[in-house]
């Protein structure tokens, strides 16, 4: 059975969108060490996205390339979780300006990498040998990202009154978006049936344990959630993705095929 292209794009888009978001901190990090950390995390994520886009392009054949997949698809064609496209601050409309909030950045990186360590671990057994190889590489990188974000989550949550309040606000804001992890998109269903993808639902107890343990150490409370579940992974995004892609794709679209 062939590898569902949409499944590879889902994994790749997750990585490229969060990589682009986190790269916004480059030159603006709260401290020099964290500026470097976020740039390094972005480098890993964009590297993972490249490998996945290359694999998708290879399977698509024709004139598909990694650059075309990254730069010449519109927002409705992106398959990333909505969580990853949100700006580094609380809920505001897309055109509103606000200071970047490092607690939002850290909480998101933690929630995402806590999922992805399990996803990559499982995908090492994918029936697609290229995806299995990418998973084995990405697992190492993601484990380090998890280590980094969990460390800061605890420092902020169990820190000062101000850092605790900001970390709790970020958890309250972002946690509802993680509900999207547990629904099954058609691409995920097809990938699981072909033994190429893994059933994310089965990872939920492990993710819950990891998240609850970290939140407890950080003296943070996990909010209850009963509400709307986002659908970024089937192409229904928030308004924030278009702004992000506008910046990421602008150069490639203004000067198609440019090299330097």
């Amino acid at each position, binding site marked *: 059975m062939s590898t569902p292209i949409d499944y590879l794009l889902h994994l790749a888009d997750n990585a490229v969108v969060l990589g682009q978001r986190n790269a916004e901190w480059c030159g603006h990090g709260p401290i020099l060490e964290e500026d470097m950390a976020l740039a390094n995390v972005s480098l890993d994520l964009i590297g993972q996205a490249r490998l996945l886009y290359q694999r998708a392009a290879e399977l698509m054949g024709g004139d598909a390339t990694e650059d075309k997949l990254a730069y010449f698809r519109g927002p409705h064609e992106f398959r990333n979780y909505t969580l990853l496209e949100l700006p580094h601050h609380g809920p505001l409309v897309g055109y509103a300006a606000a200071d970047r909030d490092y607690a939002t950045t850290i909480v998101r990186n933690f929630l995402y990498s806590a999922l992805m360590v399990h996803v990559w671990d499982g995908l090492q057994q994918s029936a697609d040998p290229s995806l299995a190889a990418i998973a084995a590489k990405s697992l*190492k990188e993601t484990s380090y990202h998890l280590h*980094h974000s969990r460390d800061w989550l605890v420092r902020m949550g169990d820190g000062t009154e101000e850092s605790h309040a900001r970390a709790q606000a970020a958890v309250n804001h972002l946690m509802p978006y993680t509900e999207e992890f547990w629904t099954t998109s058609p691409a995920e269903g097809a990938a699981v049936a072909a033994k190429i993808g893994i059933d994310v639902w089965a990872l939920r107890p492990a993710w819950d344990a990891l998240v609850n343990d970290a939140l407890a150490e950080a003296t943070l409370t996990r909010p209850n959630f009963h509400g709307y579940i986002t659908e970024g992974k089937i192409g229904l995004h928030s308004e924030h993705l278009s702004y992000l892609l506008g910046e990421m794709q602008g150069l490639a679209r203004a000067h198609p095929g440019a090299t330097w």
Partner: protein
Amino acid sequence: MSSVVDKVWATLEPLTDPEIPVVTLRELGILRDVRETPEGIEVVITPTYSGCPAMGQIEDDVRASLEQAGIEARVITQLAPAWTTDWMSDEAKEKLRAYGIAPPHRTCGSGSGGDVSVLKFVRRQPTEPVACPQCGSTHTVVTSEFGSTACKALYKCLDCQEPFDYFKPY
């Protein structure tokens, strides 16, 4: 091993990492294999980290060396098994130390990661101390989990006060 394969290894032997010019690509485990196939000679390289920006330079260096030596070969990037610092020779580790970079001080087990718990990095465990490459003291602290390149972290020696790079076990 054929003489052509030997010649390719010899040609590529002087090539070093663009960011760490004291260790060769072979010693770092980036240059993985040279093999003879029905389609000709293949040189296999593997990236350290997915987004390592030095990979483009490394591939160019390999091609240029082959061209200069008049050897026709294809350069192939292979991901599996995933690169690990466990492949680094003791000789390479000593070179890193002499250059001022603390080498990885523990092994990572299986390169594939299949039998390694994914949670091993999660808990803040007391890890074995990293020795300062300048004075050898193990009285050191991490100043940043991320450093000047993807493969390194920043440390500081509390005895000689020197800051230093640490090549992360990976």
